């Protein structure tokens, strides 16, 4: 069954058995497959969900949270706001079981795809090194470079945009 989504778009789930497919795209829509090839639609409720799925839902891990760091132009200094973000980041890490940190670099759309992929990874690695200096074990941190694929602000190609030159630190 589909749960009411927490994001802006509810998404959808397709249930296929044999030749039959049913699409669930409403909160609490449900499908039952009583035997292979037979998919029947039904509606469920929060009460029913709690009864059947209580323990599974209670075991859900905390949702990953992202922090963003911005740099002063032409330096490797964080902006003053970013220094506060580091404090929040440490608090978030401290309250999670088995915390993992993923440092994800992003670029604007100046430069080629391979160039931006490499640049975003370099930015992420630099922030990773900073976090290690601040005392986070290196083994808990992984790095990724998303290039220009996930802009904070949409721009045309070749546009320099400071808000997209950022590093995201995801804690999960």
């Amino acid at each position, binding site marked *: 069954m589909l*749960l009411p989504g927490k994001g802006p778009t509810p998404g959808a789930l397709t249930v296929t058995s044999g030749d039959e497919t049913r699409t669930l795209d409403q909160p609490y829509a449900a499908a*039952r497959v009583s035997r292979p090839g037979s998919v029947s639609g039904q509606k469920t409720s929060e009460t029913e969900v709690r009864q059947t799925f209580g323990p599974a839902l209670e075991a*859900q891990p905390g949702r990953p949270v992202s922090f963003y760091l911005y740099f002063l132009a032409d330096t490797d200094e964080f902006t003053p706001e970013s220094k506060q973000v580091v404090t929040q980041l440490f608090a978030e890490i401290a309250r999670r079981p088995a915390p993992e940190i993923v440092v994800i670099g992003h670029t604007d759309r100046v430069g080629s795809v391979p160039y931006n992929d490499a640049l975003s990874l370099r930015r992420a690695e630099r922030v990773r090194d900073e976090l290690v200096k601040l005392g986070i074990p290196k083994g808990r941190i992984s790095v990724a470079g998303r290039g220009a694929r996930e802009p904070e602000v949409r721009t045309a190609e070749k546009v320099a945009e400071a808000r997209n030159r950022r590093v995201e630190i995801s804690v999960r």
Partner: protein
Amino acid sequence: MKFPMIFLALPLALTIGVLQAGAAENAGQIKVSKGAVQIERSGQRTPAPVGSVVQQGDLVITGADGSVGITFRDNSLLSVGPDSVLSIDRFVFDSTTHQGAFESSLKQGTLAVVSGKLAKQSPEAMKVRTPAAILGVRGTEFLVRTGSVKD
């Protein structure tokens, strides 16, 4: 005698290569573990406390009092309730492009899913199987129960 030796050695070397490639990267990590929770890997069952890694090919098994929550590398969150068996059939995630595949099977029990970056990138990427059905995921949260007498 030399020929049979060579033929035997080649598949063996290939097998080892595949196993190492599979073990190189973890698929996810256990964040919540209550009651009896085990991971079966290569036929061996071990307890799975918080912090245990989950890999492609693992079976995650809970007892009557067990429940477990796993965060995967693409930020998918899967949690299972008591008396459940979840198989991690395939997990491939490219952290640059967000392309890959996440296929799992709920053999028995209850499962709660919050899909992650793979399903957001491509509606074909994430699939959950049950003995009777295949679920395709387009960025969403859902629940699955696989047959019991009550059904």
